[in-house]
C-alpha cells in the first residue's frame, strides 16, 4: 500500500481581496516526483508556503507525513528539504559555509555534516567553487548552490520551487538529472514549474493548476490521452487565404486551424494519416510550403484544451 507524504485538502488562501488558492487539493505519495505545473501567479509558491506552515490560510487542512502540519512541528520540518524560488543564501559566507550553515540547521553531528556538505557540493557540481562567495557565482551556479543548501541534509521530502528559473540549458539539465537521482535514492519530490518540458521530463505525476484551482492531474501520458487532441500539424506556408483555411478545417479529424504570420497550425483528433491528407490538399491546390511536420500533443495542449489559454505567454 502506498504511503501519503503530503495531503492538502480544500485549501483556501486569500491575500486581502485576491483568492490565491480556491479549494485546492493535492495528494503526494511516497516515492513520487510530483510536478506542480501552472502559469505565473497560479498559486504554486503559495501552496508550498502553506505546506511549510509559513503562511496562515483561511480554510482547509494540510497533513505532512500523515500528521497535521503546524509552524511548531520541528520534527516534521526536519524531514523536509526546501529549495525556495527566491535564492536564500548569505552573501558573507562561501559556498561551502553556506551549505554547512543550512545543513547545520538539521544535522548536529559535525563529522556527519562534513560528509553531507561534501556530498552536496559534488552533487551540484560546485567542487571548483567551494571557496567562492555567492556574489561571484553566475546565475546558474547560484541556483545550484541554493539547491545544495536545501538538500544537503538528505531529507525524505524535497520541495523545489522553480529551481531552474533563469538557468542556462546546461545547468538546467544537470539540475534535472540530479533531482531524478535524489528520487532514485528514495526521496519524494515536489517540483513546481511553469516549464512543461521539464515537468514532463522528470515527473511521475503531474498536477496542473490555474488561478488557485485544480485543473487536472495524472501522468504525462494519462493527461495527454485525456484530451481529444492527438496530433498537431505545423506548416510554414505563405499566401493562404480564408478559403484555404476553411477547406483545411473541413478535412477529416481536423478540428481547429490557426494561421498567423506564415505559420499554420492544424489540430487533429484521432485519425492515422492526417499529415498526408494535408499534403494532398496542398498538392491538389498547387500550394507551395516550406516545411511541414507533425507533433504529438504537449502538456500545453492539455492546459489549452481545458482552460482555453496557453500555459506560458508565447515567447
Amino acid at each position, binding site marked *: 500500500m502506498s504511503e501519503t507524504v503530503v495531503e492538502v485538502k480544500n485549501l483556501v488562501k486569500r491575500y486581502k481581496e485576491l483568492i490565491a488558492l480556491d479549494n485546492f487539493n493535492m495528494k503526494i505519495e511516497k516515492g513520487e516526483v510530483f510536478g506542480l505545473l501552472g502559469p505565473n501567479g497560479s498559486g504554486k509558491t503559495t501552496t508550498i*508556503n502553506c505546506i511549510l506552515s*509559513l*503562511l496562515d490560510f483561511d480554510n482547509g487542512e494540510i497533513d505532512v507525513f500523515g500528521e497535521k502540519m503546524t509552524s511548531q512541528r520541528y520534527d516534521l520540518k526536519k524531514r523536509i528539504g526546501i529549495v*525556495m524560488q527566491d535564492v536564500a543564501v548569505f552573501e558573507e559566507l562561501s559556498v561551502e*559555509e553556506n551549505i554547512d550553515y543550512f545543513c547545520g540547521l*538539521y544535522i*548536529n553531528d559535525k563529522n556527519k555534516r562534513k560528509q553531507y556538505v561534501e556530498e552536496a557540493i559534488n552533487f551540484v557540481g560546485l567542487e571548483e567553487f567551494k571557496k567562492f562567495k555567492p556574489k561571484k557565482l553566475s546565475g546558474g551556479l547560484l541556483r545550484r548552490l541554493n539547491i545544495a543548501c536545501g538538500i544537503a541534509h538528505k531529507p525524505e521530502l524535497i520541495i523545489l520551487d522553480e529551481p531552474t528559473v533563469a538557468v542556462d540549458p546546461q545547468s538546467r539539465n544537470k539540475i534535472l538529472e540530479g533531482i531524478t537521482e535524489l528520487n532514485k535514492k528514495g526521496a519524494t519530490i515536489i517540483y513546481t514549474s511553469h516549464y512543461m518540458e521539464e515537468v514532463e521530463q522528470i515527473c511521475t505525476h503531474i498536477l496542473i493548476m490555474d488561478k488557485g484551482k485544480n485543473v487536472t492531474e495524472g501522468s504525462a501520458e494519462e493527461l495527454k490521452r485525456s484530451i481529444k487532441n492527438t496530433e498537431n500539424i505545423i506548416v510554414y506556408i505563405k499566401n493562404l487565404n480564408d478559403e484555404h483555411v476553411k477547406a483545411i478545417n473541413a478535412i477529416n479529424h481536423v478540428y481547429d486551424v490557426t494561421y498567423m504570420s506564415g505559420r499554420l497550425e492544424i489540430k487533429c483528433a484521432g485519425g492515422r494519416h492526417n499529415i498526408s491528407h494535408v499534403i494532398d490538399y496542398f498538392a491538389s491546390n498547387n500550394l507551395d510550403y516550406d516545411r511541414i511536420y507533425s507533433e504529438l500533443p504537449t502538456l500545453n495542449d492539455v492546459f489549452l484544451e481545458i482552460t482555453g489559454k496557453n500555459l506560458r505567454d508565447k515567447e
Partner: protein
Amino acid sequence: MFFNIFKNQLKLGFRNKSNVFWTLMFPLILGTLFKITFGNIYSEYTSDAIKTAVVFETDDEDIRNNTKAYLEGLTMNDHKMLDISYMDYESAEALLKDDEQVNGIISVKNDGRLSLDITSNGVLSTIQETITTIYNQNVGLIEKVAAEHPENLPAVLEGIQKRAEYIDTHNLAGDNKDPFVSYFYNLIAMTALFAALTSLRIGNNCQANMSSLGARTNASPLSRMTFQAAAFLAAYIVQTAIIFVGITYMLFGIKINFGGDIPLVYFTTAIASLLGTSLGFAVGNLGSFNLDKKESILVGLTLTGCALSGLMYGDMKVIITEKAPIINKINPAAVISDSYYCLNMFGVGSRYLMTLLYMLVISAVLITLGLVMGRRNHYDSI
C-alpha cells in the same frame, strides 16, 4: 544547533565589512578631528595663546563688555586661549595679511554676534571658528527665547551658566583637564548605537515575511528562541569588539583622558554595547519592511539621540536637562555618555551605578519589545 548559528552569525557580523568599517570610521575620524581641534595638539604645538585681533563694530557698551568677558575668559590647560589686541579693522587686516602677526580677526557686530576673518585653515583657525560659533549660538538661543518665551529666559541663562560651572567643576576635579571630553563620551555612545547595524539583521534573518533568508530559516526545524539567542549573542560580541577598538583608539591612540579606571571604562563600554545591541534587535524586529529602511530608522534614531545629548551642539544637553529631563533618562546616547561622565567625575558610586542600571533596564525593555514584535512565526502574507 545553537553553536552552529552562533558561529556563523559571528562570521556574518565580522565579515560585513561595510558595517564594521562605517561603524568604526565615522567615530574615529570625528574623534581625531575633535582631538586635533581641542586636544593635546593645541597644547603641544602652541603653548602660547592664539594671537587674535578684536574689532568692535558696535558702540553698545553691554555687547562690548559681554564679548570682552567671554573672549578674555576662555582658558584651556590653565592658560588663556586667545592673546587679544583691540584695534580698528584696517590695522587688523594689515596684521592678518602680514603673516604671523595675528591669526584671525574677530569682529563684534551691532547685533551682538561675532564674525571671524582668517586666512588659513589650520588648527588655530579651527579653534577660533569654534569659539565664535559657540558664542553666536548662545546669543541666538537667548534672543529666540527672549522673543518667543521671555518667561523662560532666566531658566536658559541659568542653564548656560550651569554649563559654564559644569566645565569649571570638570577642571577642578583635576582628574581631567579637557573640557571637551564629553564630546568623546558622545562619540562612543554614537559608536555603540551605530554598531547596532549588526543586530539589526537578526529580525530580517529569521522573519519569513521580511526576507527570503527569513522564510528559508523559518522552514527549518529551528526554534525562534534558539535563533534569536544565538544571533543576539553573536551580534553582541561583534559590536563589543568594534566599540572596544573605538575606545582603545581614543584611550591610547589619540590619548583622550576618560579619567577613572581603564578597566572600568571598558566595563562601561561593554554595558553600552549591550544597549546598542538591544536597540538594533528591537528596530530589526519592527515590521515587515526591508533592511535599508530599518537602517535608516536606526541611523536616524542614533543621530537624533546624539544630537539631543550634545554631540553636534554642546549646549543641547543643558537645554534638554532644563526642558525635558526625562529625555536624558531614556535617550540611549545620553545615558551612555552620562555613564562615562559619572565614572570620570564621581568614580564608582551611586550615580555611576545608577547609569549602569539605566542602561540595563533600557536594554531589557528593548529586548522585550524585539521579542514581542518578532514572536510570530506564521504570516498572513510573505
